[in-house]
């Protein structure tokens, strides 16, 4: 069973999607009230692109994240799944998913809809025109890739990105070659891993901001991020952030350009997920470690004003929070 089959929704012909979208929230066929207007107020479009390598399990996880996101930020979701063969009468298979979400109060009441398309590789060229039928016009369009190869992206998807507000991918799962792509609008690219790590940057940032920049870089020799299995992308993102930030601390002038930045796997048996260690030429040091299971951070440091030993609570952003962060707030 391929990904398209795994995703929930009612199988339809492509031509049935538009009429169904306009009538699906009516209580009955004779009901002419605009029922949808009270519960549905899409103000953005989210197009999810799956690659041929995306597993059914991954795909379902991404789909559920998009639906959870839509419960807070009502949006029109369009999901594009490459398939090996189509099963319906059309050249493209289609499904429509709808969910009436009722939260604790009226503020959390909304309708979520997703149009899901299964398309053959050779029909990718038609996608731009096809999805324009269902995108809410005049409203921002966001694209989210999952497990799309750089080759397929260049070939099939880049033409769809013109004028979109933001393009998302997750460096933890994507083809590293994605980083070498010449994006039409590079400023619109956002990495979900970076967004996911916002609380980590906040914790480290708030702590380090208690020290003057010059004090942080004086004598700094090495910055290491140690990561648990499966957290390499997080480690890369954190190293990249520290490297850039330390440059703003006056790194070049202080000779910190010579600081060694690196990452390494955590020692076997460690119960932490990520550790950040700063090594200095003198007796200064920083050790920041995060245990995802216990949602706790432990900081021990001496950055020139005495020893500090702190425990903090820290929870990484949920997938839908990370999605919102990446779409609206990340820079």
């Amino acid at each position, binding site marked *: 069973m391929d990904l398209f089959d795994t995703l929930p929704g009612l199988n339809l012909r492509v031509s049935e999607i538009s009429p169904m979208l306009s009538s699906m929230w009516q209580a009955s066929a004779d009901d002419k009230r605009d029922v949808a207007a009270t519960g549905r107020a899409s103000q953005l479009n989210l197009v999810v692109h799956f690659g041929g390598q995306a597993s059914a399990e991954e795909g379902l996880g991404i789909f559920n994240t998009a639906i959870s996101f839509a419960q807070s*930020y009502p949006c029109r979701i369009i999901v594009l799944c490459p398939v090996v063969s189509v099963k319906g009468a059309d050249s493209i298979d289609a499904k429509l998913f709808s969910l009436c979400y009722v939260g604790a109060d*009226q503020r959390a009441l909304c309708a979520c809809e997703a149009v899901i398309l299964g398309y053959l590789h050779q029909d990718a060229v038609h996608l731009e025109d096809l999805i324009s039928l269902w995108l809410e016009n005049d409203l921002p369009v966001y694209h989210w890739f999952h497990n799309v190869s750089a080759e397929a992206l260049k070939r099939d998807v880049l033409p769809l990105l013109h004028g979109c507000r933001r393009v998302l991918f997750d460096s933890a799962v994507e083809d590293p070659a994605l980083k070498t792509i010449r994006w039409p609008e590079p400023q619109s690219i956002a990495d979900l891993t970076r967004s996911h790590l916002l609380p980590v940057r*906040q914790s480290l940032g708030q702590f380090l901001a208690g020290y003057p920049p010059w004090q942080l870089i004086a004598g700094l020799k090495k910055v290491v991020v140690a990561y648990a299995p499966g957290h390499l992308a997080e480690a890369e993102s954190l190293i990249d952030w520290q490297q850039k930030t330390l440059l703003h601390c006056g790194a070049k002038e202080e000779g910190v350009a010579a600081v060694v930045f690196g990452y390494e796997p955590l020692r076997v048996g460690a119960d932490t997920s990520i550790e950040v260690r700063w090594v200095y030429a003198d007796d200064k040091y920083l050790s920041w470690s995060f245990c995802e299971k216990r949602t706790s951070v432990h900081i021990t440091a001496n950055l020139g004003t005495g020893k500090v030993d702190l425990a903090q609570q820290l929870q990484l952003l949920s997938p839908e929070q990370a999605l919102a962060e990446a779409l609206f707030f990340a820079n």
Partner: protein
Amino acid sequence: MQSHDTDRHPFLQGLSRHRGVPPTVIVIFGASGDLTARKLVPAIYNLGLDNLLPSDFYLIGFGRKAIQDEAFREMTQTDVQKYSRRPLHPEFWEHLSEKVLYHTGDYDQVEAYKALGERIDVIEKNLGRDIQLLFYISTPPTVFKPILENLGASGLAARHAGTALASKIIIEKPFGRDLDSAKGLNQVLRQQFQESQVFRIDHYLGKETVQDLLVQRFSNSIFEPIWNFRYVDCIQITVAEELGVGTRGGYYDQSGALRDMIQNHTMQLLSLVAMEPPVSLSPEDIRDEKVKLLKAIQPVDLRPEGGDVIRAHYTEGLVSGERVPGYTQEQGIPADSFTETYAAIRLFINNWRWQGVPIYLRSGKRMPRRVSEIAVQFKQPPGALFSDTARFDLAPNTMVMQIQPDEGTTLLINSKIPGLETRTQPVKMHFRYSTTFGSNTPEAYERLILDAMGGDGTLFIRGDETETSWGIFTPILDFWQSGGRRGLETYASGSWGPVAADRLLWERKHEWRRPGP
């Protein structure tokens, strides 16, 4: 990429300002009060849940009642359970409540403040770093002065002065009860704090729609060209409450609608809706424009006949189908009280933009429903094309910004009714935060407390704003005080106010709106 913000520490770059607030101890004076329970503690809890509190954060309740730390933690836990917009998360609460403390002391005893300072010294020593103090004065105004003076005398007000960790103070309304007392309060505040350390809170400014006012006005090119006397017929601002005075009778009878609502909430709304574009979004530039607007308001005509002011109090009536007593039958209200529970005022702004446009403000208790809104009503289009009123039911275009209960904006436009014959009908274009952004909107107090911790005064009221506003209303209060019951109207509970208030609008062929859902 975001430009490099040179004012901030490099390790806070790229984080929103709200995620980079410094280590903070919030000290709440009036810790066992209603506001603390209903708003402040839940707001702090929700900030923490959103990971927006600084990692080194403490909450200290300060009050006269002798309460142990553990008992205060239990009280605050109950507050969260009862009043938070999100349920209590036991694990998170366990972590946060470790940093919740209580300090017993008399407001007028400097020793209590010195002892508080010693507790804070211990916190700083344990943390190995300095920490900012944010004092939240949530007490009756009678004790503002001793609290402020003792914060100064104990050295707490001056702690870390001149640095980003300088002490800050949030003060709840009322900021005085007339111009003289407002000046007096500001004087006491300024003796202990710089203006940049003072955050006078009006929770209306923390509401999304109120913040959205500036965005809607100045980020859309279609509104600003028509936002003036050429196109706007009038502006109506309504702050209506369904409730009566309840158990607050004693306090309310000393205050009244003008002091309690009009002088602060409605004037803040008016400032934002009518001010000129600020030079930048910096707090001072925005507040400068608000003050300029207030200074341009013409003195109010106080004549009993044909003047600009109406006052009234409610009589017995029906609210939501239930019979309710009149104001003077309420607990704690003297039978001969002449305190107004309703006030309506017509103002004119003497500047280029608003010359001749009447601004109608009203606020009252025991009105049909709780609603706060700003309605900008535009002039009828010129020409005779649709002037046949029998055929064309044209309504004035109106832009309504609803502040509460259901935040959003509505634009009323005229449209053709489907059919062969041309007939028109007004229709509404709605934008509602609840349907567009679901449950993402934080409570006003969350936003405001966070802003104060970060030292951002944009959504707070500056000292000269309070004085300018009181300068407009003090003559009215003096006039009413000298007149006793003379000119005091009545209105039935559950109505939209006294008939006399309609006169303010009839004179210019306007009518009060009946704010609906």
